[in-house]
């Protein structure tokens, strides 16, 4: 059963990780959802698929008043990211969904109307939440052709969508990366196969290296902290991507 863990708190500025669900059916890829809260406003990052909506909703509700949800940030268009959209709108019809302009006319197939979507331009944008100024950071072609990550400069947290994802065995169910070398083995195949562009990857590595990051929180697998963040960026920069095998 999913549970919300508080991974950052400074007064009423909080980050929740709804992570690692051992009880979900094996045919569904395991996902992490994140909630950024400031004051009486909350933003849900990559809310997940239809099948896991009840688990995510109840985990979120246990830690945060769901009526304070002001928006949804969708890093890209995949079903494991955003196919639950209609259900969140069922609960709160005036929710805004921030997503790349590229997916603006695709995501309504999952739900919502014209007024639901706030298109993020290719260079990214600022998303205001309470007193926070969250930054949508471009991560195009990693893996989706219209893809953004979300950076919170105050909490120094980077939500990195599928980048940093690891498909971990059940015995490595911890919330945080404990042994980088052991962990990254489970990320390698995924990044080689899913990340399509070497140039986009180098651009991203340069871009995020300039950010001050304490925690990098991916949509699958464990959270990178401290020195593991730069370790990951270096590892990714050196990795050959866009290959079927090898």
């Amino acid at each position: 059963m999913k549970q919300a863990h508080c991974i950052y708190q400074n007064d009423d500025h909080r980050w929740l990780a709804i992570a690692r669900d051992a009880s979900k059916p094996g045919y569904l890829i395991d996902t992490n959802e994140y909630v950024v809260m400031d004051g009486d406003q909350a933003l849900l990052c990559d809310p997940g698929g239809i099948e896991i909506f009840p688990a995510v909703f109840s985990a979120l509700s246990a830690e945060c008043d769901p009526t304070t949800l002001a928006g949804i940030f969708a890093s890209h268009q995949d079903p494991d990211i955003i196919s639950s959209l209609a259900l969140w709108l069922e609960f709160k019809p005036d929710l805004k969904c921030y997503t790349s302009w590229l997916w603006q006319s695709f995501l309504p197939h999952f739900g919502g109307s014209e007024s639901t979507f706030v298109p993020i331009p290719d260079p990214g944008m600022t998303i205001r939440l309470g007193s926070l100024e969250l930054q949508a950071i471009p991560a195009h072609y990693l893996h989706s052709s219209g893809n953004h990550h979300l950076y919170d400069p105050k909490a120094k947290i980077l939500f990195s969508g599928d980048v940093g994802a690891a498909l971990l065995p059940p015995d490595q169910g911890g919330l945080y990366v404990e042994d980088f070398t052991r962990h990254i083995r489970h990320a390698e195949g995924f990044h080689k196969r899913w990340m399509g562009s070497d140039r986009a990857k180098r651009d991203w590595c340069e871009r995020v290296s300039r950010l001050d990051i304490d925690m990098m929180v991916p949509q699958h697998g464990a959270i990178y902290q401290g020195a593991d963040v730069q370790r990951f960026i270096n590892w990714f920069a050196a990795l050959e991507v866009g290959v079927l095998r090898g």
Partner: protein
Amino acid sequence: MNAPEKLKTPSRSASELTCIVRVNEEIKSIVATAFRINLMALNAIFLAKRAGNAALGFGVLSNELRRFAQDLTRHMASLRDMTSGSVGSVTGVVQQQRNSAILLQAIRLSGDGVPGVREARKRGAQRLAEQHGRLRALDQRLRAAVEETQQLVELGGVLARSAKIEAAYGGGFSPALMQVSTDFAEVIAQIKRSLEVLGKERLVKD
């Protein structure tokens, strides 16, 4: 907590979709039969012309049967419009039922105390009631249209029976005219059976 409870799919509306499929199939078969009647009537008109004075009455009835086939085709076209509209309404109901069921499951997991859930459920129930209302109205219109078509087909049956009587006066052409009028009676009986099936279908199960 073990594996999450399997999400319930609303089988009721799925069966409503199956019902629309059955209605459409029945409509298609009636349209095909109406086309056949039209051709049969054309042949009968030529046959009556060849039979001359002996088959004047038969000729008039054949013309009437042809008009009947054209009216029937028009009726079926409007029935088809209704059912294609109902696919949209049923899909709306299916989606709303599915969303409401999943939301209910989420609320059960979270407990009733979560703010906003009562309003969300109320909104969902309201939308569902509206969509069901639309579907019910469509169902009534469909049934009324089927009844109207049944009356038209009764008239077709009378024409076929009269044609049979007229065929008896066809002199040397009598056996051929008799065969044609028997064929008319058979296809009209077939349409009657199809309409009976249609009349029993319900787009909304109460």
